């Protein structure tokens, strides 16, 4: 009985620590990153539609051609930025192939008359809104990226809390 009680106490303390961590994440960074993302997006829309001709940055301006996601989740539930990864790989390839491949001809096969979508290349999603965008849109992008990182943290904590709750209920 005392062993079960001590296990219960231990798990309850773990749960309280996790809840404290969860509330810190959720009430601070998670909440504020989303708010700042939305505020900057609204400012960018105000800036963009102020002239009266352009549409707001929304569903109607999205590029619906095939594209890859820039953010992925790996097995450890961490966010992987594929754009950064591709840039690093390209840089490494450039450094490696400085003089070696001078004589080899690199040919790309192109099917005639058919537009090729570079599905295997990860592009900055900002480009679908144009080359020159208000700086508030870039800020909004940065805040939403941080918000997604916080979201992954929140999901991990939620799963840990859920597991602990189930274990505590079993012990009771």
């Amino acid at each position, binding site marked *: 009985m005392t062993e079960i009680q001590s296990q219960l106490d231990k798990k309850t303390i773990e749960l309280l620590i996790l809840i404290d961590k969860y509330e810190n994440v959720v009430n601070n960074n998670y909440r504020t990153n989303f708010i700042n993302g*939305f505020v900057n*997006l609204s400012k960018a829309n105000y800036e963009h539609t102020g002239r009266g001709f352009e549409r707001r940055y*929304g569903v109607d301006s*999205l590029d619906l*051609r095939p594209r890859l*996601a820039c*953010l*992925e989740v790996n097995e450890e539930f961490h966010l992987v930025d594929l754009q950064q990864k591709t840039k690093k790989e390209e840089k490494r390839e450039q450094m490696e192939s400085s003089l070696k491949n001078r004589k080899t001809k690199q040919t790309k096969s192109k099917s005639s008359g058919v537009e090729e979508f570079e599905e295997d290349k990860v592009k900055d999603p900002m480009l679908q809104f144009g080359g020159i965008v208000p700086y508030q849109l870039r800020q909004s*992008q940065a805040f939403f990226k941080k918000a997604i990182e916080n979201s992954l943290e929140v999901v991990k904590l939620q799963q840990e809390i*859920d597991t602990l709750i189930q274990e505590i209920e079993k012990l009771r």
Partner: protein
Amino acid sequence: MSSASESMAKRKLLATIADEDSVTGLLLAGVGQISNEVGKESNFLTVIPGKTTVDQIEDAFDNFTTGRDDIAILLINQHLADLIRYKVDSYTNAFPAILEIPSKDHPYDPEKDSILKKVRRLFGE
């Protein structure tokens, strides 16, 4: 066990069911993927008030959670999750994980947080 880890390894994408501003923001961050593959055309649903029906939201939820095998996390606005609360609450799979995110008009409300509700229930509140 190995098939479970294999299926987990395939789950890399974040899907989203949200309003226009949330989808725009999340797509800006790089969450969106569009392809010509049948059943995996896009990993986001933009909910437009008055145009998007609850059935469409339910269909998208089912598609992202059980229909597709490449989604790791589903991000859904809290106020939209309330429209299909019965589906969200009865969802028990570990993956994809479901996270209710705030929107522009409905900021994060700890009173509606499902995990904190479970904690309060556990402590008898």
